[in-house]
């Protein structure tokens, strides 16, 4: 008799919908070698990010005009189609995107550029922190809390250590020490939700949100009751001596930007990229992020990987906190800016690629810095930048939208299969469901994905 189960040279049609066997479908974001980096997926992803940026700028344009009609002013800032508007979007965007770089023609190292770059530096840390967790399939919303405790730990420890050494030697010793302490404290704080997830199935989205609140409150308590600077009305620690903070190279000291820190951050991005793409640990991490069942099959200790990647993520965030302390503010002060939350948006925009984080961080650094220029230079409410940020993320989340547009415009369907999210976090793989049509190609196991791990 014949075999029951035979040729399957073509999968059931439904299964191959949108897939062109043999071509790269743009699903992989795990280029293993540099030459594989420049592939359809990376290009497509970058295109989507750029399109998202442009689209949100366009929406923002309309929003600025609309707001400009809702308010009143004595003279119109701009006129379109005979209607006067109080706010001129062109001015706003000019100030936002170009203003962030300051007047480069007269001063290459101007203060505004320094602000942009210093914001970028911290965002590189928090962005890559989120990216690492994301790649491991964990949604670390607790970067903010990890940053806060890292910053506090770093400030307190460095302050203590700065009494022991000083001068150039002090700088050489204290900076690595401060960063290490920040990384350690942040790492430990990141390990808590990691362990809760791995060993108690506690949803990390919830625990990290809660831990953010806890971090803020505990930091407030610790500073107020134990590390308060008696000289200051602000709730803050004693300022660090000059030699304990990042030295300004090329840039002016007053601008709170250090090329050293920037280089450290950039190097770290490359290191994390290599770690993820080139090492066994990175392989474990990526695998458990994309497909935990397969990771387990491949001998990955899921629980340990979860804890390890959350620790790493927290450590990176903690280093970000240390850089904030050691480069920007010079001590710990309550009311730490929301770099951690911005890190999430940076990471999403970068498609969770550590190298992409560099570019995304720069964009958000520009937005942060540029919003100050906008606030001073125009009457447009600075919250506009917050709206733009949300829109960018919204559009990045819907690659299918751009594919549709791309399809209409060029009437060529991009090679990617639809619905693949830019991130590796939640998954919306389009093949799901359709696979079920495939006769017998699947076991009886329903191919449900997207299970949130509780």
């Amino acid at each position, binding site marked *: 008799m014949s075999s029951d189960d035979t040729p399957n040279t073509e999968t059931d049609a439904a299964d191959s919908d949108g897939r062109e066997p043999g071509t790269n479908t743009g699903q992989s974001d795990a280029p293993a070698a540099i030459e594989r980096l420049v592939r359809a997926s990376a290009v497509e992803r970058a295109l989507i990010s750029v399109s998202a940026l442009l689209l949100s700028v366009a929406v923002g344009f309309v929003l600025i005009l609309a707001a400009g009609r809702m308010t009143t002013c004595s003279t119109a800032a701009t006129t379109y189609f005979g209607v006067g508007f109080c706010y001129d979007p062109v001015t706003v965007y000019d100030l936002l995107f170009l203003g962030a770089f300051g007047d480069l023609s007269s001063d290459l190292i101007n203060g505004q550029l320094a602000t942009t770059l210093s914001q970028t530096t911290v965002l590189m840390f928090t962005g890559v922190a989120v990216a690492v967790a994301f790649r491991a399939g964990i949604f670390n919303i607790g970067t903010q809390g990890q940053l806060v405790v890292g910053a506090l730990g770093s400030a307190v420890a460095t302050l203590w250590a700065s009494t022991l050494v000083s001068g150039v030697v002090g700088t050489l010793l204290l900076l690595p020490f401060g960063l290490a302490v920040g990384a350690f404290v942040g790492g430990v704080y990141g390990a808590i939700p990691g362990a809760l997830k791995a060993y108690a199935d506690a949803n990390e989205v*919830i625990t990290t949100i809660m831990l953010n609140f806890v971090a803020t409150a*505990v930091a407030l308590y610790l500073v107020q009751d134990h590390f308060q600077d008696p000289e200051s009305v602000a709730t803050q620690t004693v300022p660090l001596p000059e030699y304990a903070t990042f030295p300004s190279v090329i840039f002016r000291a007053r601008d709170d930007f250090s090329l050293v820190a920037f280089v450290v951050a950039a190097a770290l991005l490359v290191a994390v990229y290599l770690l993820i793409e080139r090492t066994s640990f990175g392989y474990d991490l990526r695998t458990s992020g994309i497909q935990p069942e397969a990771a387990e099959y491949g001998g990955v200790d899921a629980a340990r990987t979860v804890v390890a990647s959350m620790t790493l993520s927290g450590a990176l965030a903690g280093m970000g906190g240390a850089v904030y302390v050691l480069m920007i503010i010079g001590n710990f002060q309550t009311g730490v800016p929301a770099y951690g939350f911005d890190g*999430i948006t940076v990471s999403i925009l970068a498609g969770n690629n550590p190298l992409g984080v560099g570019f995304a961080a720069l964009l958000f650094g520009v937005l942060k810095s540029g919003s100050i220029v906008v606030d001073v230079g125009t009457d447009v409410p600075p919250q506009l*930048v917050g709206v733009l940020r949300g829109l960018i993320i919204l559009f990045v*989340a819907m690659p299918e939208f751009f594919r549709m547009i791309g399809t209409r415009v060029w009437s060529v369907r991009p090679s990617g299969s639809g619905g693949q999210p830019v991130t590796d976090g939640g998954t919306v793989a*389009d093949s799901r469901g359709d696979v079920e049509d495939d006769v017998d190609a699947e076991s009886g196991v329903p191919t449900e994905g997207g299970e949130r791990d509780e």
Partner: protein
Amino acid sequence: MSSETVRGRLTDGELSPQRVAGLVAAVLLAGLVLWGFAFPETQAGRFVAILTDRSTLAATLRLSVPIAFAALGGIFAEKSGVINIGLEGLLIVSAFGGVYMADVTGSVWMGLAAGIVASTLLALLFAVVCIEFRADQIIAGLAIWLIALGLAPFASQVVYGGPNTASVDTVDAIVIPGLSSIPFFGALFSATPFVYLMFGAVAASWWTLNRTSFGRWVNASGENPKALDTAGVNVTRVRYAAVLLSGVLCGFGGAALSLSIGQFVGSGSTMVNGKGFIAIVTYLFGNYNPVGALLSTMLFAGLDALQLTLQARDVFAVPQPLVRTIPYVTVIIVLALFGRTRIPKAAGEHYESGDE
């Protein structure tokens, strides 16, 4: 996730370590309460006095309103298969929209309506993005939050010149004579209309989910959309309805929040300040059951009310910032002990009926 297979037997067993720990915690709490009853002059006694005070229940109810509404909204969306992590954003826009319209029209109820409209419009955007354009739901939800976080203060800035709005009228409590003077539970009969609306919404949501056809469809859409599709019900339409419903419910919550204060505060993380995220926690706790969500909301809100009172009364000599962490830490502990919830199987997944 991956650890589940291995973990399964630990967490599901009758006497898992977590269950044991939970039991111990419960016993300790019960002991504390008994101790408090027996010795009213001690710290424990004062603690119990606060715990059983009528005003604690009243505060709990008020603090519950925005969270419970958002949680109900989250239940509908997620049960239908669309994880709506943007509840916070929906609360923010409705909080602003409510005050703005109440300010313009002078009517709290018009404000409430406007809050609902604002929230529903934003939910519509979310629905289109997720359902039409197959966006990743988690990211789109975050985006919704971020947009609202910028948009509401932006609008306030345009209209009021600052992130905080003007003050508007609020509504008075509805007091049911007699019943409202019952100790402790009297708080249930002397509350704002929003509290009653909350109870009504919980009941209506429960009924809708468990007793109506639409509820069945929402369930099926989140568990096995294909089953619903093949049964001849349009999954996309059900999901749209559910997400819009989450917008409507969040609209109630956000507007209730701002209208019971009479102002929208848009600086910092706005007056919503994480309530939308707490709502996600509470409906997960409540296992997607509206009543369960209400109870866990009240647990959280109760702890929040408690910590404010504990500070004021100086019960337990703990520094005030640390007292404030009680609700958050409790959530983490409870989650770690009883962490697993059964989420709808198809939640987070895009569903496309047949071919295009």
